[in-house]
Structure formats: C-alpha cells, structure tokens
C-alpha cells in the first residue's frame, strides 16, 4: 500500500508521485493486477426515451470468451435497490439494471462480461435490443423559456428601488454544456473477497464517499468495503459522484463470482460521469453616474436529467464578490432526456461569474470608466456582502492591481476596436472570480519507523493537484524531519478518513490534520524522550524540534536524544499518531474566500475569425501557498480550462436524434498547447489567519472562475463585438 515511495531525486521540491507517474510505476484504477479477472463492457441505449421491449443475447452469447451478462432481467440481488422506495431513498440517481425505462440515449442497459476486453467489446456489439419508443426533448434552448423561475435565496433590498438607475445593462447569456473529460477514463475493478467483503479499485475523488454509497446498497459493514484510488488521472468534479458504472461493476462481479474490471469508453465519458449543464442567464445590472452598483437581478436556468434534479447554483456567486444593496436571484431547472449533470470545475460560479463579469464590463464602457476601476470600486473587500461577517482574509483588490501591472493594462487604449496590427485587432480584458473557501473535517496519521523515517497517511485522494506533495511539505515544515525521510500514503479507505477532494477544499482540509498529527508526533516522542532526559517533560509542540536523527528542544537544539536511543530504551516498535482537524467556531466569526483576478490580451483576425490568446494572467489569493510549483500547475491548468470554456468546448446535441454527436476527443474540442500562451500565474501568498493551522485556502476553482469572461471582454475590446454566448468559435466572430 506504499503509495509515493520513490524519492524524487531529480527535483527534490517537485511532486512526490512524479517518478511513478512518468515511469508508469503508479497504478491507476484499471491497472491493478487481480487474479482471475474478467472484463465488462456496458451496452448503451440507442434511443433517448421509451422502454426496453426485449434484449436478445443469443448472438453475443456465441462469442468465445463470454462469461456472463447483467441486464434488468438477469441480475444479482442488490438489497439497497430491492424496492422502488429503497431506490428513491438511496438517492443513487439512475437505477441501473433496475428499470426497463429509458431516460436518455447512451443509458447503460446491459453489461457483457468476458475473458478479455476484446471479447467483451465485440460481444457488446452483437446484443440486439428492441424498444418501445416515446417522445423526448433534449433541446435546452428550445424549451427553457417554458420553465418558470423561482426565487433562489433571499432578496436583498428592493428591486424597484433602482428602476430609474441612470446606467443599466440588461442582457442574456448562454453557455453550452461542457464535459470534464479527464485524461484517465473512469474505471472500476470490483473484487468480492468474501461473502460480505468487497474491494474496489476505483477512479474517484473520494474513497470514503464510494464506501458510503456502495456499502449500504449491499448491506455491507463499511469497513468491509475497501476502496483504493491511489493515482487519479484528473477529475475536475467527475469523480465526486459514484456513477452507475461503479454499481454495475460490483453487480457484475457478484453475477459471475469473479473480479470484474470495467472502464468506460470515451463516448461513455460523455454520458456516464456528468457534465457542466448548459445554461441560460439574464442579468440586469444598474449603477449610478459614479459607477456605484445600485442593484442586480440575476436569473438562471440549467439543464438537468429526468431521473434526478441537479442545480448548478449559478446565482450563488452573485452574492459573494460585490456590494449589491439590492439583489434578486432566481433560477430554474430544465429537465431533458439527457444523462445527469454534475459539478464541473468552478461549478455554478464559473457560469454565473461569466454573465456578471461580462455585464460589469459592458457597464464600464457605458460609463466610460476603466473596467478595473469599476470593479475595484464595488468589490466587497472587508465583509462578506451576504452575511456581513468580516473576511478572514480577502486580497482581491491586490490581485487586481498586480494583474493590471503583469498584463500591461496601461498599454490598453480605452476605446474598443482601436488597437490594430494589419488584419489583427488587439484587445485587453479582465474579470475577477471568487469562491467560498471551505474546509472539512479530516484525519491523518503519522507512522514513525525506528530509523527516523515517517509515513504520512490519509484516505484523501490526490487527483493530480499535488495533495501528496503538500502533505509531505507540511509534515516537513511542522516536524523538521527532512523531506527525504518522509513518504506519503493516501487514496485508500482503510487510512484515516477524509472528505472527497473537491470544491477547493482538499489542501485546506488535510493540511490542518497533518499539522495536528505532526504536533501529536512531537508530543509522543517528547514523552518517550522525557524518560531518558527529564528536560523533555511538559513541552509544547513549538518547543520541540525533530530532525533526521532525533529529538531536541528549541531552547537547546544541540542536545539531541537520538531515535536509536529512544527506540532502544523504550523498546518501541513503530510510533503511530493520528489526529483529526476540522472547522470550528472561527466559521461563526469570519467569512472565508479564495479569489483571483484574470487578465487577457487577445489578437482577433477579423477576416478569418481567428482568436489568439497572447497573454493570460492569473493572480490569486489562496492564502499560504504550500507548494508553489504544484499550486501554479493547478492554476495554469484551470486557465487552460477557461480557454476551452471561452473558445471551443461544447457538448453537441442533436435535437432530432435526441442525443449527442461528436462524442469523442476529435469531435469535442478542448485546448491543446498551441491554443494557450504560457500562463502568467502569481500568488499573493499571505496565510489566512483563521481558516486552518496552515493558512492555506483552496485554489482549484478560482483558477477558472472569471477566465472565460476575461477572454470575452478582451474580444469585445479588440473588435467592438459583444459576444454573450459561449463558446466563442471563429464563426461567431466573422458571422
């Protein structure tokens, strides 16, 4: 179970998992060797609505190597799905293999299990399904007008009070659906290690979450379900849910009494693991002549499936960044014959922020006021605008002023459509983003071996964000034990429990637990040292120093009790400490946020519609930066995601066929290196005083919240063309 056990000697401050990742040593969910393994392939519905009349397995059965099938007609018992009521109570979502109803095109309706992946894949093509077809609707743009809005949160002030505002922007914004598409496709290996014991190797952002969802469905004791997710090739939110294919794999393993591996195909990644739902928004924003915001009315709708309702909470961010004395937010869900949507990087806020930041930009031109100044004037810099609590820290204004310097905002001529280089027009744009900085209760353990090495453990996953590296860095900073004597174990449900890694809470949550565990280790070792040297009695963690060799006191660092002596005199085996850390009273006194300012310089070719991003600057306040390289890596990745959202990403839906087309990586465009400049990332780097013992706030979301608006605003400045729908593809520029 040793996870990050190879020392990275090339770049000592680099990632703990780097060597394993680039040498192929790291095991992703589908890569574990399990004896007697067979392979599963899901068969998808080819119609968007109706029911299954008949599934004919005859031809598929004849393929050599086929071991078995799972369908709604032949399946193992799932106690948690035994009745309609239980299915509802489970809140699992799609009741896979427990219904003959078709909710969307691509819905898994059968599973083939075979000796090889090739056999299973081929047999899957030979299954013949007859359907009763029914009417369907998949066209968000065509039907969202029919769905009434409902109040989303309490109204602030009076919407009527600013109806005579001298400066008003009232516009609509549409964003197409985006798909996470992490490089590693979702995969599960299920192995029943006993009648009541199950082991899962699963691609997920939270092993304990998988445990909590799957165990009750099979009436298993939680601790009898081990979930392993040591290496994760990207998540972006797609791993925050337990999707139908995970349950399907567990059922398949039960059905054939053998371990089964199932990896989604790339097209199945478009319907099987969520997506950022398509959205419509309307913003009405008013200001007085000085640029002070008088009020905002934000309306939003997002698409959802027919079998579960997912709200992206698009208007949440409206209550976060700026002072609006008058604020009204409304939203609605638009159910369609599509698979379930879910959180995707900067969920909801990314969408809502695009509309708000574009509207503010538009207002700035109307006011003939610099967009930087207009924002700075209205940002709620001292207190959370909704609950009025003081921010524990909020450096958004600093982010803006540093960002303006980095992009060279002074070079920008204020008029749109005024900076040219031949057929190319040059533009500058900016936007800001913010995210409620959360923290969840997390446990961590440290095991010290006789030679002074320590192993730092938590169940939390590392989805590529650098969690493991951060854990090592914090353990080193807190204990003093050299980095090369620290290894990390994570992503396993038998380790100390941790929440899922998502919503920019990972580092904020785990860092406190590592500090607490490090302090516990110091105290424990001091107790043992006190039996040798009485001066070590009753010390606080701050007064204790650990090194590669032994323990000493801050007062007298040269006097060391070596680990060798400690172990011998106390006849120790391994020293193990565990600690839990979570939010407390500080949450009642302060409000917490991470924030970022995004600046963009574009070139737009007005003849061909080509948009080239020349510079992209992201200045972020994420509190203390635990590991600058890992943090910057996360931010530049988010910025590239923002380029995708702004310029190209779109899940294509055919309204007549009732499903997706172009559902692969050739048809669904996300940015390649050639589309992105080097991203200029900079951190404020000031620890938050109250969020947790390290002062580290989360970063993952604010890297993308605001990026698309900065790009769209730059395109407006370059061309004078205000584009309020995403993605902004070349045809929308020339058209």
């Amino acid at each position, binding site marked *: 179970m040793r996870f990050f056990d190879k020392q990275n000697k090339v770049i000592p401050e680099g990632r703990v998992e780097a060597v394993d990742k680039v040498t192929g040593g790291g095991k992703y969910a589908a890569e574990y060797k399990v004896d007697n393994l067979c392979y599963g392939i899901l068969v998808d519905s*080819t119609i968007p609505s109706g029911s299954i009349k008949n599934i004919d397995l005859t031809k598929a059965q004849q393929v050599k190597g086929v071991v078995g099938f799972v369908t709604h007609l032949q399946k193992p018992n799932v106690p948690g799905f035994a009745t309609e009521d239980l299915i509802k109570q489970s809140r699992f979502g799609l009741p896979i293999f427990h219904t003959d109803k078709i909710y969307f*095109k691509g819905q898994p309706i059968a599973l083939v299990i075979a000796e090889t992946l*090739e056999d299973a*894949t*081929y047999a899957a*093509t030979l299954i013949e399904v007859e359907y009763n077809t029914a009417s369907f609707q998949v066209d968000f743009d065509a039907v969202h007008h029919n769905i009434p809005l409902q109040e989303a949160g309490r109204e602030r002030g009076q919407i009527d009070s600013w109806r005579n505002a001298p400066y008003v922007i009232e516009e609509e914004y549409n964003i197409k659906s985006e798909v996470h598409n992490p490089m590693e496709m979702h995969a599960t290996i299920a192995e029943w290690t006993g009648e009541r014991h199950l082991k899962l190797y699963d691609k997920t952002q939270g092993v304990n979450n998988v445990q909590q969802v799957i165990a009750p469905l099979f009436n298993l004791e939680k601790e009898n379900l081990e979930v392993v997710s040591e290496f994760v090739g990207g998540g972006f939110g797609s791993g925050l849910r337990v999707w139908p294919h995970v349950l399907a794999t567990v059922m398949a393993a039960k059905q054939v009494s053998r371990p089964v591996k199932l990896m989604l195909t790339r097209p199945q990644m478009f319907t099987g693991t969520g997506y950022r739902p398509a959205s419509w928004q309307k913003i009405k924003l008013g200001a007085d002549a000085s640029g002070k915001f008088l009020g905002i009315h934000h309306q939003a709708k997002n698409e959802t499936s027919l079998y579960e309702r997912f709200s992206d909470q698009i208007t949440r961010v409206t209550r976060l960044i700026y002072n609006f004395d008058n604020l009204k937010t409304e939203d609605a869900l638009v159910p369609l014959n599509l698979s379930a949507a879910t959180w995707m990087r900067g969920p909801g806020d990314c969408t809502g922020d695009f509309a708000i930041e574009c509207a503010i930009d538009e207002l700035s031109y109307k006011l003939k006021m610099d967009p930087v100044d207009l924002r700075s004037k209205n940002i709620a810099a001292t207190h959370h605008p909704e609950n009025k609590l003081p921010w524990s820290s909020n450096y958004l204004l600093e982010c803006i002023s540093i960002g303006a310097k980095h992009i060279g905002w002074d070079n920008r001529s204020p008029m749109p459509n005024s900076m040219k280089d031949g*057929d190319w027009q040059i533009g500058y744009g900016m936007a800001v983003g913010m995210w409620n900085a959360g923290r969840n209760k997390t446990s961590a353990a440290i095991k010290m071996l006789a030679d002074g090495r320590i192993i730092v453990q938590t169940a939390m996953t590392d989805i590529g964000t650098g969690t493991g590296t951060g854990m090592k860095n914090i353990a080193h900073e807190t204990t003093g034990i050299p980095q090369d004597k620290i290894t990390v174990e994570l992503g396993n449900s038998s380790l100390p429990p941790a929440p899922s890694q998502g919503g920019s809470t990972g580092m904020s949550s785990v860092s406190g637990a590592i500090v607490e565990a490090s302090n516990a280790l110091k105290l424990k070792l001091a107790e043992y040292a006190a039996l040798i040297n009485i001066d070590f009695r009753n010390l606080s963690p701050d007064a204790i120093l650990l090194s590669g060799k032994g323990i000493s006191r801050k007062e007298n660092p040269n006097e060391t009790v070596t680990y060798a002596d400690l172990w011998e005199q106390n006849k120790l085996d391994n020293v193990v400490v565990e600690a839990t850390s979570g939010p407390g009273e500080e949450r009642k006194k302060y409000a917490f946020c991470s924030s970022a300012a995004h600046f963009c310089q574009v070139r737009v*070719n*007005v*003849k*061909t*519609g*080509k948009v080239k991003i020349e510079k992209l600057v992201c200045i972020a306040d994420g509190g203390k930066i635990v590991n600058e390289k890992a943090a910057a890596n996360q931010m530049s990745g988010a910025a590239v995601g923002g380029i995708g959202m702004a*310029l*190209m990403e779109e899940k*294509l839906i*055919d309204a*007549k*066929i009732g*499903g997706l*087309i*172009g559902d*692969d990586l*050739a*048809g669904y*465009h*996300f*940015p*390649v*290196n*050639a*589309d992105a400049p080097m991203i200029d990332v900079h951190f404020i780097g000031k620890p938050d005083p109250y969020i947790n013992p390290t002062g580290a706030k989360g970063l993952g979301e604010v890297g993308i919240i605001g990026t698309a608006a900065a790009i769209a605003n730059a395109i407006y400045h370059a061309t004078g063309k205000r584009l309020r729908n995403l993605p902004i*593809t*070349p*045809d*929308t520029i*020339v*058209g």
Partner: protein
Amino acid sequence: MKPFNLIKTKDPKDAVSQKKEQVQYIAGGTNLVDLMKKNIQLPDTLLDITDALSRQVDNQGRAIQIGAMTRNATVATNVMILRDFPLIAKAVLAGASPQIRNMASTAGNLLQRTRCPYFYDVTTACNKRKPGSGCSAYDGHNRMSAVVGYSADCVAVHPSDLCVGLVALNAKVHITGKDQKESVIPFQEFHRLPGNTPHLDNNLPEHALITSIEVPENLFGKNCAYLKIRDRDSYAFALVSVAAALHLDGDRIIEARLASGGVAHKPWRWLQAEQFLKGKRATASTFGEAAKLVVKDLKPLTHNGFKIDMLRGAVETALGQCLLD
C-alpha cells in the same frame, strides 16, 4: 471490434491479388482502425501493405514521386519537398497531430473518410455509411459541412489538408488495378462529388491499390501559403482551408492556384478565381476580387453560412501570405 485476420503483403501485385470483398488494405491505420472500432467498417481480413509499398520521395526530373507508404511526417520534412514543393509540407503540417502524422501514409491520406459526426455514429442515418438511410447532417448539425457541390443525400466534406495542396499542384495518382495493370488518375478526378452515391468517396477502381503520388515540377515554390481556420490550433479539422500559390513575375501574376478544404466532398479547386488572377497585379484589391469570385456561388446550409465570410477572408489572407515568403 469484430475479430479479423491480418495478412502481410510483400508488393503491390501480391496485395491486389489477395484483395476481394470483406478484405481491406491497411497502411497507417489512423482512420481505418477508428472505423473498425466504431463498427463502421467490418472487414474479415486486413492486408497489411506497409512493406508492400514505397516509402521514398523520388526525384523524377520533371516531377517528384511520393511513395504511397511515405508517412505524412516524412513528407512534411523531406528536403526536396520543402525546397521545391513547400505547399505540400505546409498542408501536411496543418493536419492531424504529430503522432498521427508519424503513422499516417500518403495514400491513406487520400482515402480517409469524412469526419461528419453522423458518419461515425451507427445509431444515426447516413447515406455514406448506409446507403438509403438518409442524411442526418443535411438539416442537423452541419456547421462543418459542405457549401458547394453537395447533394440532398450527403453534405459531408473531405477532411484532408494534404489533398488540398496536391489538387492545387495538379498531382497524379498512380495505381495498380486488380488486373495488375498500372494506370494514372489526375488528382482533380480522383475524389468524387456525392450525387446520389455518397457511399463512393473516389474513383479508385474496386480492389485497386494506390502506389504513388506524382507531383509535376512547378514555379509556385516561392509564393505559396496554406491557411487553415479551425476551432483549435492543432488536431482539428478545417472549418475552411485555403491552398494558395502564385507564380509571379515581379508583381505580375503569371499563374495562380487556389484550392480549399472544408467546403466540399472533395478537395475543391477555385478555377474561376485562378483564371481571374492570371495576368493581374498581385495586390490586396486583386486578392479581394478573387476572394469574391470564390464565394459568389456558394450555397450554405442551415448552420454554415459563416463559411462565406470566413472563406472570403481566408482566401484574401492566404493570397496575401503568398507574398510574405
């Protein structure tokens, strides 16, 4: 994927002698393997022709001969092509990704199938994939589809960039037929328009094998450009592309070539605009007039009207770029 046999062949005659129904040639496999994985093509047997065909680019004096198996990456970096036929290298480099270009063969590039999304989805109607089933793109997602030469049965476009360069340079396709006889097809006649037989992409006789591509020597080497407008800067098919080449005497155009991808079922020559450019001075206003001629008879579908403005801009820009080299 349906199980299949794989047979290695040693030369073109060996290959064609084994070719029959349900047997398919495979070279780089960068398109065919996808088609097999998606159950669009289901051969029983694949004839591996990677060792049967030339991988050389040969100087034939008045022409070059590109062996059918020459990898796209090799074509793009061949010294002779870069010096005398740079348009070909520019077109190749605008296509696919480095990994795909390392695998893909020259002849395979000609024979790749359309990237129309409906063609790739066996749950939808597509006359090219299943004759008589209908065309889902005609009134569906046709943003990437044709604006010229299409029919109600098929609005697909040919996806190649290389072919746009080759058609502009009047290349020729050398083939060996099932009867073992060698013959030549002019590039402009190689690919077909869809008409009511969109399942046929080209005029290669049944079971015949492409052995090489001949490109005659020309005076376009100094002033040529390939411009591709796409949704991202690599690994995306063209919304529109333009191959432009000028043979200049001072600023006088002796001869011009203009061709496009992303507009038709075949790599498309703009012969009227070429004729217009002949003898004119190479100026922005001449290029603007030529671009207007290019787009004057286009018939966009429901979602690709933007191609008119984009193509006009791309033609002007590409002709302008010819003067930069």
